[in-house]
C-alpha cells in the first residue's frame, strides 16, 4: 500500500532522525492535550491579538505548498529536464506542507470537536470555506500525482495518460491556494495592514522564493545523504527561481512601504511602524523584522551575483537566509502586526507561550516526518532502478 514498506528499512541515522521527530511530536501532543483541556488561554493570544503563531505558520506553509508549482510548471510545460528528479519531491513537499496547514488551523480552533460544522453548514460567502476547498483539493491532487508518477517510475512504464490533465489542473490550483489564503486577510475592513490588493501577489512571490529555497536545501541534503549527483542537477535552476522570486518579493514589500509612508494615512502606517520601529515604546517585533530585512538583503547579495550563486554552498546559505527571512515576515510579523493597534487604539503585544511554541514545533515535526517518509520512498524506488541499470 503506497509503497510504505520502503520507508521501513533504513540506517541507524535514519531511525535516529525519525525517533527525534517522534519525540518532538509527542511533546507537542502533550501540550496540545493541555490546551484542549484548559482552552486557548495557554497561548500568548489575547482579546486584541486573536491570531498568532498558529495562523501565521499556516499562512507561511500555504506558500511552501504552493511552491511545488515552481518545479511542476517548468518540467511539464517547458520540458525542463533538470526538474525530472525533483518534481515528485516538490509534490511531496506540498503534501507535507498542506498537512501542516490543516493541523495549524485545527490547533487554532477553540472548539475542535465542532470542526465538521464547516462541512455541515457550507458557507460560500466565507473565504474560509473556499480556503478549505482549495487546500483539500490541492492535497489530493499532489498526493495522487506524486504517487501515480512514482509508481510508473518503479514499474518503469510511462505514467498513465489521464494523469497529464490532472497535473495541468494542479498548476493554476497551486496559485489559487495562496490567492485564496491572501483573500482570507485582505478582504477585511479595518485591518489596514492586510487591506491591500497586492497581498496575494506578495504572498505568491514570497512563496515562490521560500518553497524552492527549501527544496534546494532538501536536494543538497539528499545529494549528501545518498551520495548521488542526481539531486544536484536541479539546484542551480532552482537558485535562479529563488533569485527572481525573492527580488520580486522584496520589491513588493517596498511598494507597500512607499504607499503607506508617502500617503501618511495613519491607519496604513501604524502597523508598519509597529513592525519596524515600534509604537509608543512597544518594540517586541522590531528585532525580528530587522533580522528578516538583513537576511533578505544578504540573501539577495549572494543570489544576484552569479559567481556566488553558482557555488552550491553559498547558494545553500542564501537559501537558508531566504527561508528564515520570509518565515519571520510571514510566519510572525504579517499576522501579528495587523492586530496592533487594536480598533480602539490599544497596543497589546503578543509573544507565543512555551506551550504554543511546542505545539507549533510538534506540527512542524509531523510535517517533517511525512516529508522524510515520502522522500525515503522516492529514494528507495530510485536506488532500485539505479541498481538495475548498473546490472
Amino acid at each position, binding site marked *: 500500500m503506497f509503497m510504505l514498506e520502503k520507508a521501513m528499512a533504513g540506517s541507524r541515522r535514519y531511525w535516529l532522525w525519525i525517533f527525534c521527530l517522534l519525540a518532538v511530536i509527542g511533546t507537542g501532543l502533550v501540550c496540545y492535550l493541555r490546551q484542549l483541556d*484548559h*482552552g*486557548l*488561554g495557554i497561548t500568548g*493570544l*489575547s*482579546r*486584541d491579538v*486573536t*491570531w498568532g503563531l498558529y495562523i501565521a505558520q499556516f499562512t507561511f506553509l500555504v506558500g511552501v505548498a504552493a511552491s511545488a508549482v515552481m518545479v511542476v510548471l517548468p518540467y511539464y510545460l517547458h520540458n525542463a529536464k533538470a526538474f525530472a528528479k525533483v518534481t515528485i519531491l516538490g509534490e511531496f513537499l506540498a503534501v507535507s506542507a498542506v498537512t501542516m496547514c490543516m493541523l495549524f*488551523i485545527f490547533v*487554532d*480552533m*477553540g*472548539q*475542535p470537536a*465542532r*470542526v465538521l*460544522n*464547516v462541512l*455541515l*453548514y457550507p*458557507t460560500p*460567502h*466565507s*473565504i*474560509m*470555506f473556499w480556503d*478549505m476547498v482549495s487546500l483539500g483539493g490541492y492535497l489530493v491532487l499532489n498526493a495522487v500525482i506524486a504517487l501515480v508518477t512514482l509508481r510508473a517510475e518503479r514499474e518503469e512504464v510511462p505514467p498513465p495518460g489521464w494523469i497529464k490533465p490532472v497535473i495541468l489542473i494542479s498548476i493554476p490550483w497551486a496559485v489559487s491556494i495562496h490567492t485564496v489564503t491572501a483573500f*482570507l*486577510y485582505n*478582504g*477585511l*475592513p*479595518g*485591518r489596514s495592514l492586510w487591506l491591500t490588493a497586492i497581498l496575494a501577489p506578495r504572498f505568491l512571490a514570497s512563496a515562490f522564493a521560500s518553497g524552492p529555497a527549501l527544496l534546494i536545501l532538501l536536494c543538497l541534503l539528499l545529494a549528501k545523504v545518498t551520495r548521488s549527483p542526481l539531486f544536484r542537477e536541479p539546484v542551480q535552476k532552482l537558485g535562479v527561481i529563488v533569485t527572481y522570486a525573492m527580488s520580486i518579493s522584496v520589491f513588493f514589500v517596498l511598494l507597500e512601504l512607499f504607499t503607506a509612508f508617502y500617503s501618511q494615512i*495613519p*491607519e496604513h502606517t501604524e502597523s508598519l511602524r509597529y513592525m519596524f520601529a515600534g509604537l509608543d515604546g512597544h518594540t517586541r517585533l522590531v528585532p525580528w523584522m530587522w533580522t528578516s530585512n538583513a537576511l533578505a538583503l544578504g540573501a539577495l547579495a549572494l543570489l544576484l551575483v552569479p559567481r556566488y550563486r553558482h557555488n552550491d554552498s553559498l547558494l545553500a546559505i542564501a537559501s537558508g537566509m531566504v527561508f528564515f527571512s520570509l518565515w519571520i515576515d510571514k510566519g510572525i510579523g504579517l499576522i501579528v502586526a*495587523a*492586530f496592533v493597534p*487594536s*480598533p*480602539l*487604539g490599544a497596543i*497589546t503585544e503578543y509573544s507565543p507561550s512555551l506551550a504554543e511554541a511546542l505545539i507549533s514545533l510538534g506540527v512542524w515535526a509531523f510535517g517533517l516526518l511525512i516529508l522524510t517518509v515520502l522522500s525515503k520512498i522516492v529514494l528507495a524506488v530510485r536506488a532500485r532502478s539505479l541498481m538495475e541499470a548498473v546490472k
Partner: protein
Amino acid sequence: MNLTRQAFLRLTGIAFLTGAARKLVAAVTGPRWAMAVDAAKCATQPNCTRCIAACHQAHNVPAIPDPRHEIHWIAKEPFARTFAAEEDQYSPVRALPAMVLCNHCENPPCVRVCPVQATFKREDGIVAMDWHRCIGCRYCMAACPYGARSFNWEDPRPYIHNPNPEFPTRTKGVVEKCTFCAERIGTGRPPACVEACPQKALVFGNLADPQSPLRALLASRRHVRRKPELGTQPNVFYFL
C-alpha cells in the same frame, strides 16, 4: 395518512412559499432595532458603570481579571479613542464617554466571514450568535472593525460570580458579544443597559417606525456613527 405524490408536492410548495413570504413581510414590515448613545447625558455621571454591570449580570459575562482574556459586551471609552480620526486635539468632545458595543451593523463583516453561520443577521437587524455552532476560529474577531467581540480563552464559569439562571453561560473556545438583548425585546422589555441607565442616555428603538422616539431624535439631533467609511452601516448612533 394517505397522501398522493401530487398533494405532497403541492403542500411542500405551499409551505415553502409561505415561509419565504413571511420572511419577506417581516423584513419589510418588521422592526429594525437600533440604539443611540447620548454622550452629553452620559458624561453627567462620570463614574457610572451601571449599564455595564446590568448587561454583564444579565448575560453571565465573566469578570476575568487578566486583561488579555477579558470579556465584555459593552464598555466605556472616551470619544478620543472611539472617534480617533474625527476628533482633533482641540475638540470639546474628546473626553466625552462613548459606550461601545456591537453596532449590529446593517452590512456586518463578521457575518460575512463566519464559516459556519454561527453569527448571523436576523430580520429585525440583530446580529445574533449561535454559541453551540461556533467553532472558535475567531475569524469574526479579525473582521469586526470595532473590537466588539470577545473570545472565551478559558472556561468562563468560575468567573461568573452571580449567575443569572435565565440566561445560558458559554463554554471555553467560543466567541461572544452583545445581542441587543434579543431575549428581552422578544418579551417587550428594553435592553438591560438601557433600563439600567439613570440618565436615560441610551435610547433603544425601532428604525422602521417613523413615529418611534428614536427616529424623532435622529431626525432632530446631529449624530455620528463609528467608522462609517467602512460601509458596515452601524446601527448604534452617537449624539454629541
